[in-house]
């Protein structure tokens, strides 16, 4: 459906020129539409940008092009069924989204998860995080005009996808999580393949620094661009690498450990710059931390059940349950209001991308249009995650 692009005056008194949508006589502003189909938005995000020359005056995101009302859909799905829908939100960290749902249901049922299942979940979650950051790294470099890193990132990501395919049965939307554990046991080849992957990854990760991180053009493009202060990051609810790039301690894995995250050693990466380069560094360093977690766990997978015994039809007791996990993009929350039935009465997904997007206008004012690509790249927006 066609939607009028309207510029609404908020703080800055920018003249609205929706009809003209072009060259306003006063002030010389130029309004351009980035998206819904645009190479840099990585999905159907529509940004209405008011430009003065090449300087951004105001960005207005228009959402909803991929809004499926998943929250409403989940109200008619049973507790076993709705987990798979959340893979379709942040499809790059599908496994971690499923994890949050499973955790929330288990909280309601007060289920005890077998230790083997916990370790499997964390291993898969960290592999997903690496895969997601790999894709982000390639796409970010591609947004800034370097095409080659994309292929190098996909080489490693493909290996993870193969591991996922072998154990979970699918490459992207795994649906490996069930309330009480995981769907199948690990594939016999899993440990060997993950070790091979770690070896491959460690031999290639230095190339990433040579090719992009230390590249002077890349540093100039990202340093000091899109600065988000610590206070603003908290106020905008920015989490994940965006929040940590601004110096906010917000890693749920550290603050509210779930599964076995309190038993493994890893560092919460915090950069204090608040600019695009800090956000970039957080993600690149997190890659190494995820590998560290996997290295600790891969040889110590406890024997035992991979799934707790559950009833065929799950019923949550009356009440409210909230679970928080750290996806590749930030804090993902599942809020279930149960009335005691077999389906949730109301379910709310707190998606990290939604809050991170709300900071976009604030941090990109006064930047050049080329900077917008660096900012959007480091915000790492996944549009279905925002629209839900």
């Amino acid at each position, binding site marked *: 459906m066609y939607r009028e692009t309207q510029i609404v005056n908020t703080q800055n008194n920018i003249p609205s020129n929706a009809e003209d949508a072009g060259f306003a006589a006063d002030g010389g502003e130029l309004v*351009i539409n980035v998206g819904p189909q645009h190479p840099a938005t990585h999905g159907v995000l529509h940004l209405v940008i008011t430009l003065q020359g*090449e300087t951004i005056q105001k960005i207005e995101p228009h959402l909803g092009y991929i809004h499926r009302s998943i929250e409403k859909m989940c109200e008619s799905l049973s507790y076993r069924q709705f987990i798979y829908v959340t893979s379709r939100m942040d499809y790059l960290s599908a496994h971690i989204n499923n994890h949050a749902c499973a955790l929330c249901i288990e909280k309601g049922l007060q289920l005890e998860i077998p230790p083997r299942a916990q370790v499997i979940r964390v291993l898969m979650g960290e592999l997903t995080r690496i895969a997601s950051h790999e894709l982000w790294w390639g796409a970010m470099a591609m947004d*800034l*005009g370097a095409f080659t890193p994309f*292929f190098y990132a996909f080489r490693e990501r493909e290996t993870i996808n193969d591991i996922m395919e072998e154990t979970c049965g699918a490459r992207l939307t795994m649906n490996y999580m069930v309330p009480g554990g995981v769907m199948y046991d690990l594939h016999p080849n899993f440990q060997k393949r993950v070790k091979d992957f770690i070896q491959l990854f460690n031999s290639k990760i230095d190339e990433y620094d040579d090719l992009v991180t230390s590249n002077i053009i890349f540093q100039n493009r990202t340093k000091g661009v899109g600065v988000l202060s610590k206070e603003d990051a908290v106020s905008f609810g920015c989490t994940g690498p965006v929040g940590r790039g601004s110096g906010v301690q917000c890693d749920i894995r550290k603050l509210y450990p779930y599964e076995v995250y309190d038993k493994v050693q890893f560092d919460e990466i915090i950069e204090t710059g608040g600019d695009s380069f800090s956000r970039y560094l957080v993600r690149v360093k997190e890659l190494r931390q995820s590998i560290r977690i996997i290295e600790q766990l891969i040889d110590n997978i406890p024997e035992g059940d991979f799934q707790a015994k559950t009833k065929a039809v799950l019923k949550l007791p009356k009440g409210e349950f909230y679970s928080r996990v750290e996806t590749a993009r930030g804090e993902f929350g599942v809020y279930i209001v149960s009335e005691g039935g077999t389906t949730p009465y109301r379910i709310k997904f707190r998606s990290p991308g939604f809050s991170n997007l709300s900071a976009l206008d604030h941090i990109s004012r006064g930047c050049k249009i*080329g900077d917008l*690509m660096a900012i959007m790249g480091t915000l790492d927006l996944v549009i279905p995650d925002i629209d839900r």
Partner: protein
Amino acid sequence: MFSLENITNSIQHWLYSTFNPTMALIMECVIVMFLVIGLFATLGLVLVLMERKVAARMQIRLGPNRVGPQGILQTTADTLKLMMKEGLTPNGADKFLFNLAPFIVMIAAMLILAPIAFAKGFQIWDINIGVLYVTAVSSVSVIGILMAGWASNNKYSLLGAMRSGAQIVSYELSAGFSIISIVVLSGSLQVSEIIASQQTGWWLFRGHIPAIIAFVIFIIAVTAETNRAPFDLAEAESELTAGFHTEYSGMKFALFFLAEYINIFIVCAIGATLFLGGWMPLHIGNWEGFNRIMDYIPSSVWFLGKTFFLIFLIMWFRWTFPRLRVDQLLSLEWKYLLPISMFNLLLITLIAIMGWHF
């Protein structure tokens, strides 16, 4: 020994002995025209394929490998496809300028071919101000780009064209300075004489470090002038979708595409002529034996080898570096390249006057 010079001379001799001089001149022009157009088509096909293959190898891919053996007919098939396509003209566009723009870009590229020496004695027009002619004509193509951007009636196109304008105008300065430094060393503007002056060695090696600096600046500046990554702001796809040629389709788009590659060839040919001796084989001082062996390799092979090496260098840049931002692009030129090349020109003049070069 095989030489293109003999062929051209015999053709000219035959033409002038068979027809009257006017007729012979016209015949020559027609032959040159067909040669240039043929060269354009071949170069376009070869360079696009080369770019795709180079990119693929750097990106751990195979690249085109379906049409013809090893995919060598891929670009031919693409060209056929583009010819079949409908050339759309947007509703709000300035129709005349919109359709004129690709031809301006193309014609500008064709004109620069005139003074380039492809092999010994194989040159369309050995004008005595060859280098000056090249620098002058190469700035015409920006008019085509501005025209395309403005006439498209598209905001992305306009932004791309304006960026391109600013970029080409500023980078011409340092490209010009690098060219002048070779003119200073060789003491001539004529292409054939510049090449002849490198009989005892290429200027890149004979001119000490200042010549190398001039060469590096020249490569950076021409990369920018041809709108190639990392300076492809005019068509920065993640920002401006396709920049100034967003609205073009079919053969009109193909002309822009072709002109981009022809321009790369031309600037690399100029770079090879000025710094690497054009068709002149690799001669080292007075090593007679070595020089004689080098002379056995045909001059056209030397020229093409050098040119394609430079083209490969520019492709290598494209597939390695991220894109600059528009203000960084200009500050790179005005804060770094221009001061350095001015200072460098001073040094080169000193070297030339004192005769310090080898």
